[in-house]
């Protein structure tokens, strides 16, 4: 396959960026999208040019590092991560636009690499269960109904890639935040911090400069792990419940 790539190039956080055009040839349809970029970078290095910087690590769809907007879609045309996208999803002769996640809470570091540390701070604000090592009761002391366990798991699958924010017209982080809130709040182990968790995480999310939710649904469409839009509804419910409960205290 022969392709034309238009790639966002930006030297560093402070520099101006622009799209640059590259041609790549000899691309196999079995290649992953990132292997196609590897090919481009090998050529650029030999030509003495700066290779395209992009985040990637596990390349099996679980670490959440890869983060490209391909032809306007976060992670490209398939519902998966960029690393699991294969070139068979494209046609010979295609022009492909590759851009970084865009959101003011995710400033560009270089080229296609963005800073997603805002997500870490949302988790730090309350996305945990306080269980210091050694203090745990026997695992079978509390049974968890299977539907609750499955619900928790479904939300715990979030890989923190940020595609939800990238796809959201408002740059909102509601789907990410709700995934963690719902994972922990449904479990009996998460009950003692149920109210503070959702209130603190939502407050941190707002402080990081993410947008608000207009329920456009783009986030859930882009999510490679299929976190559903109703996850946000469930978090709203938790938030209202917590606000009422805390007000009563």
């Amino acid at each position, binding site marked *: 396959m022969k392709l034309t790539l238009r790639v966002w190039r930006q030297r560093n956080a402070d520099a101006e960026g622009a799209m640059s055009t590259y041609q790549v040839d000899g691309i196999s349809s079995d*290649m992953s999208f990132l292997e196609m970029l590897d090919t481009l970078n090998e050529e650029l290095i030999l030509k003495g040019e700066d290779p395209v910087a992009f985040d990637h690590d596990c390349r*099996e769809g679980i670490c959440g590092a890869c983060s490209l907007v391909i032809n306007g879609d976060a992670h490209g045309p398939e519902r998966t991560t960029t690393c699991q996208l294969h070139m068979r999803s494209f046609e010979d002769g295609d022009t492909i636009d590759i851009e970084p996640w865009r959101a003011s809470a995710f400033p560009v570091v270089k080229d296609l690499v963005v800073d997603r540390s805002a997500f870490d701070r949302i988790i730090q604000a309350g996305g945990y269960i306080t269980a210091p*090592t050694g203090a745990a009761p*026997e695992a079978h002391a509390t049974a968890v109904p299977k539907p609750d366990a499955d619900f928790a*798991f479904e939300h715990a699958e979030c890989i923190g890639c940020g595609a939800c924010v990238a796809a959201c017209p408002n740059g909102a982080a509601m789907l990410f935040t709700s995934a963690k809130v719902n994972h922990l709040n449904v479990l009996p182990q998460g009950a003692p911090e149920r109210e503070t968790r959702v209130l603190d995480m939502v407050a941190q999310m707002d402080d990081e400069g993410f947008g608000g939710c207009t329920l456009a649904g783009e986030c859930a469409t882009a999510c490679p792990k299929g976190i559903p839009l109703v996850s946000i509804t469930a978090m709203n419910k938790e938030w209202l419940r917590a606000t009422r409960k805390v007000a009563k205290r």
Partner: protein
Amino acid sequence: MALEYADFTTGEPVTDTKSPTGPINERWDTRRFEAKLVNPANRRKHTVIVVGTGLAGGSAGATLAEQGYHVVQFCYQDSPRRAHSIAAQGGINAAKNYRNDGDSVHRLFYDTVKGGDFRARESNVHRLAQISVEIIDQCVAQGVPFAREYGGLLDTRSFGGVQVSRTFYARGQTGQQLLLGAYQALSRQIAAGNIEMHPRTEMLDLIVIDGKARGIVARDLISGCIDTYFADAVVLASGGYGNVFYLSTNAMNSNATAVWRAHRRGALFANPCFTQIHPTCIPRTGDHQSKLTLMSESLRNDGRIWVPKATGDQRPPNQIPEDERDYYLERIYPSFGNLVPRDIASRAAKNVCDEGRGVGPGGQGVYLDFADAIGRLGRKAVEEKYGNLFDMYARITAEDPYTVPMRIYPAVHYTMGGLWVDYDLQTTIPGLFAIGEANFSDHGANRLGASALMQGLADGYFVLPATINDYLARHPGHEDITAEHPVVQEVLAETEDRINLLLAVDGDRTPDSFHRELGELMWEFCGMARTDSGLRKALERIPQIREEFWRRIKVPGTGEEFNQSLEKANRIVDYLELAELMCLDALNRAESCGGHFREESQTPDGEAARRDEEFSYAAAWEFTGTGSSPVLHKEDLVFEYVHPTQRSYA
């Protein structure tokens, strides 16, 4: 047969002085009791550096901070949540015996020692089995969503190499869920101000002052700024070195720099040749391949592995009649069948492919067939159990595993070798600890499935936080060091020189081209089957590649910016040295054991033949300089509870 190889010398034996003697089930209690404690009020005066945020590093950082220590932690990823432990799929072992199927701490201990082909230290393995039980409790308390049964209790499944159901799991994402548990605990401590977290910062060297580990040199990957960090103890939790092979199931950026730099500063490196080749990976499709993807071993619970009986059979799998298929694992190992340990399953796949019976492009693959399971359990049940793995396979190969058998082939997956540590997980440099895959301690020559997660968390949550106290209590008054200290200046200068040199060569080959070349060499000569002559060839070739590397490497850009090519090249420098030691260790170990298969040492029916009288030791290597002869220190392995037998899974 004594080995004639001039390129190393044998030094004094190395011994583990920390492991208590006495009944094995009391040793861990004894050690914890004998270890000195640090007064809780004094803990915040101690700084501990933790490198890595995977299962071992994440759990250690969180636990040390909970105890009151000041933790300074590093990871090269943009977030501690992305450490490669996240990719572990299958599960985590624990001797809970919830199934009442005869499991016990002793059986897990026994299985692990046997599975490791009697090359692990009994004391450590027994402790691991004891702690396994606490890990599950800890993780459940953190909210890790393990699979549950309808009654609300935890579900378990069986895993390769054992006959009990002791593996706890969270669909095919157990590593992810456990890691997020540790990451969340870590996050809580970061928010509390007890951990100073440095993401996108890579350790490049170790600072050893007066014989003790006192800090590290690290590079901020965004600004390129190289800085020094000081502490009272340094914990390496930087993972394994499987990426020496270029193609492996490791993450692209997983690397050996932290452990190798520590080795260069004096820490012994043990059993570097013990690498695990995982039998169920998706075969490669071409030269562009950048990494290999693992399919959880749990697939072998229901999938049947086969190849055509005839060589060169090109028919599509569904046109090959039942009696022309060779379900070779079930044939050779009737009692374990498709569930034999990883090393055995991998080697068997290699053998049938070498016979010309491999399937798929290049004949480098075998079938993993779910037709029977789908017939027996129904498609829905299979989907429930393995749906995400099937989806992943379909995405990568564009084949539907529900109708066409999967093709699998072994790939480098895990390294059992690593920095030599004593019972306290301390390396031979006082104050330097190594935990998780970065150390060598618990798996011997082969790791059982679902045991890596167990070991990482055991080390991080329970072992290290108990043992590091002893070191810190015995070294209470570390003098403060500053960046002006001559040793610090020297280490910093060396690091900067290396970076500058990499940038200055301006040759005509990319970092990846060297990495790939080294990887292919290692896979051919130090992969699934190793020979004396092959290893000698590799040992001859590696220094040549190294020399060529320093002549022809091309790294664009500068050191004062985000420069992924520079990161890569700098890691390859270390692979090029480590690879040599791996081959040397493999050459020295003229026996077959676990994942290390020397063709010269096999039973008449082609199984690995151990040679206990000569090789019942851990080989701990001392660095003497790049390209110069290392010194071998042997740690004799004593088996008091599990008596070495030839492993049999027939």
